[in-house]
């Protein structure tokens, strides 16, 4: 999360002089943050140790909610689905982004600013709006099926969001659509900072486009790749609104994800302890992933 500005924040020696007044400046922000983010996070850990329906008196659960998350087929499934979504939200956009950025970087094409504006656009549109748009595309009489019909692939047409095999990938493709532009723009920015001498040197060695890409471009954007992966992997884990608005976890439970289960368990089913547990596990996973990716990115940079 911090890699982009990492270079500016690491300086020799601490800045400024010692000042007590610093506490006063930090206090208001920290107070709000502590009350409405930090404390709830700790409270979630605490609630995860109870069986509670949100209404009546809770009973102590110990770690049994955690055992449920691991043991319950459906909840395990939710985490597995999140893993699949990571492929669609992070890995595919990375591949698409690398390809596009490499192409654009090599041939300084015209209209790049326009292209950047367009491919980044999905990032700023509310997820609910995106869900409404894609739900329509995936409908049995939607434009995806019309397209398939037009090219003679009628037999492929289906109700995409209700298909056991394809619902999860269909939701995933929305993620690929959403994140590819972000990753491309990010990588383009990284590549534009690569000194041209590196390419000239590679060419003198007789490197073709592919080797040039592998030996010069790819290593140089390692930090950007790390940032891109962090952003997109976390996006893949926070798909509550997308799932809520498209499949509600269906068909069956084939597209349910942890962030959706948190809401469902807490506010529909009334298992607040279990919901908190899922939330805590989700947070731990997000921390772990950011940690690992940042580490890898840092190592590449040094």
């Amino acid at each position, binding site marked *: 999360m*911090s890699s982009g500005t990492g270079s500016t924040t690491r300086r020799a020696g601490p800045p400024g002089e010692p000042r007590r007044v610093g506490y006063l400046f930090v206090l208001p922000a920290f107070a709000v943050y502590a009350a409405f983010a*930090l*404390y709830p996070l*700790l*409270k979630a*850990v*605490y*609630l995860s140790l*109870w069986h*509670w*329906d*949100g*209404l*009546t*008196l*809770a009973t*102590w659960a110990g770690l049994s909610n955690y055992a449920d998350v691991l043991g319950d087929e459906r909840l395990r499934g939710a985490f597995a689905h999140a893993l699949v979504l990571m492929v669609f939200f992070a890995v595919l956009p990375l591949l698409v982004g690398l390809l596009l950025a490499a192409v654009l970087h090599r041939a300084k094409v015209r209209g790049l600013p326009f292209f950047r504006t367009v491919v980044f656009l999905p990032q700023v549109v509310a997820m609910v709006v995106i869900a409404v748009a894609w*739900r329509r595309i*995936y*409908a*049995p*009489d939607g434009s995806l*099926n019309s397209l398939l019909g037009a090219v003679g692939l009628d037999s492929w*047409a*289906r*109700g*995409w*969001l*209700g*298909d*056991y095999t394809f*619902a999860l990938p269909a939701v995933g493709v929305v993620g690929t659509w959403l994140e590819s532009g972000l990753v491309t723009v990010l990588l383009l920015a990284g590549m534009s900072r690569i000194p041209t001498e590196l390419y000239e040197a590679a060419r003198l060695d007789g490197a073709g486009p592919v080797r040039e890409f592998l030996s010069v471009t790819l290593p140089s954007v390692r930090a950007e790749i790390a940032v891109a992966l962090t952003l997109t992997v976390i996006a893949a884990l926070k798909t509550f609104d997308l799932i809520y608005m498209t*499949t*509600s976890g*269906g*068909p*069956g*439970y084939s597209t349910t994800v942890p962030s959706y289960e948190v809401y469902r368990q807490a*506010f*529909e*089913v*009334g298992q*607040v*302890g279990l919901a908190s547990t899922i939330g805590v596990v989700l947070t731990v996973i997000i921390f772990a992933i950011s*940690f690992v990716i*940042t*580490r890898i990115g840092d190592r590449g940079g040094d």
Partner: protein
Amino acid sequence: MSRKVLRTTALAGLVGVLGLAACTPGSGGTAAPSQPAPNASVTTDAASLGNVTLTVWDQEVRGGQEKQMSTLISQFQQAYPNIKIERVSRSFDDLTKTLRLALSGKDAPDVVQANNTRSQMGAFVTAGELVNLDPWAKAYGWDQRYPESVRAVSSYSTDGTTFGSGSLFGLPQVGEVVGVFYSRSKLAKLGIQPPTTWAEFDAALATAKDKGEVPLVLGNLEKWPAGHVFGVVQGRYVPAPEIRALGFGQPGGDWTSAENVKAAQTLVDWVDAGYFNSGFNGQDYDPAWQGFTKGEGVFLIAGSWLQADLSAAMKDDVGFMLPPPSEAGGTAVTTGGTGLPFAITSKAENKDAAAAYINFITSPDAMKVLAENGNLPVVETSQQTAPDALGKDVYAAFDAVSRADGLVPYLDWATPTMGDTLGATLQDLLAKKVSPADALATLQKDYAEFTSK
């Protein structure tokens, strides 16, 4: 940095959890005391209640339902200017998803439409979030106008454990019957009559398929619609008392019985024969019936709640019939009963005003307004004139099946989790992810876990 973050977090977390450990969640107690029978001094004189604002949540969003509701509310406002109605309407799905949240909040609405199910009304009664309506039922004479059978499906014991008897916790406006909508012009083109036996129905489906029509329209993305189709097919094989035990979550039923297997198998056979529109599991409910009105399909198995919308779109071309009886000359068995009942929340400040509102929208005059706008009034149906041809069909069907005692409960009423289980399992079954036997075993597990408690 990361190691430091970890250490700091761990430390802060430890401190926090220790600090919290003093109290048990829920001990602060928003849980209302469970139903000491409300004092008998209820008043039915709504005009004398002073200035009141009632927040009302309903799911009357479809054509005719929306119309009757807004008509009745404006009439109520005229009759009782001192009571201001603030209406919030949202779809059935959104109501289901948000009602639990809303009832536990500080500003809970005063009157809500709560599904009869154990997952909704049952759970809310247990939590003390709904008010026992018995005193008002007596005061307003609901216990006279509404037959026992109608009141029973909105009744729970005051602790919420027994469903189908006890105290009244809600009052429905409309009746509901699930049956078969059909397109007259399509049938004429196919050269078939509306089927009166299951054999004819099977033949009609096959003919429609052969001639390139979509025999059955289904939009099942929301998961619950297939439950209505299954209910109809179940009525073909399974005796009504058996279905009632399953639907009310009473002990003694068996999802895995040979009859239920036959019903589940029939659904699968229909899928195999290609009777449903393609991609039905990924089709939205509303676009599905809209497609039906535009000539995409011959039969639509659905409930009377679509009456106004279908009639408006198809005029005389649409007809409605009960599913055929299981044997010729017998009585039809199908899902139905009442629409979602209106209930009063414990947090309602003026419960008398809330009751006055419920009384108003379920009064004999209201039943007339319901009928005029293409809805099926739950009581005094025979005194109303149906607004159009489709309405006549629906009223006749409801009347016939009620008199023959052929209405059986919605299957998702059974247990707090059955709505969820049934929806997902039927999607599984229809997609042939599970065999009929396995699907029914899943339902049986949900049902048995609950009934054995």
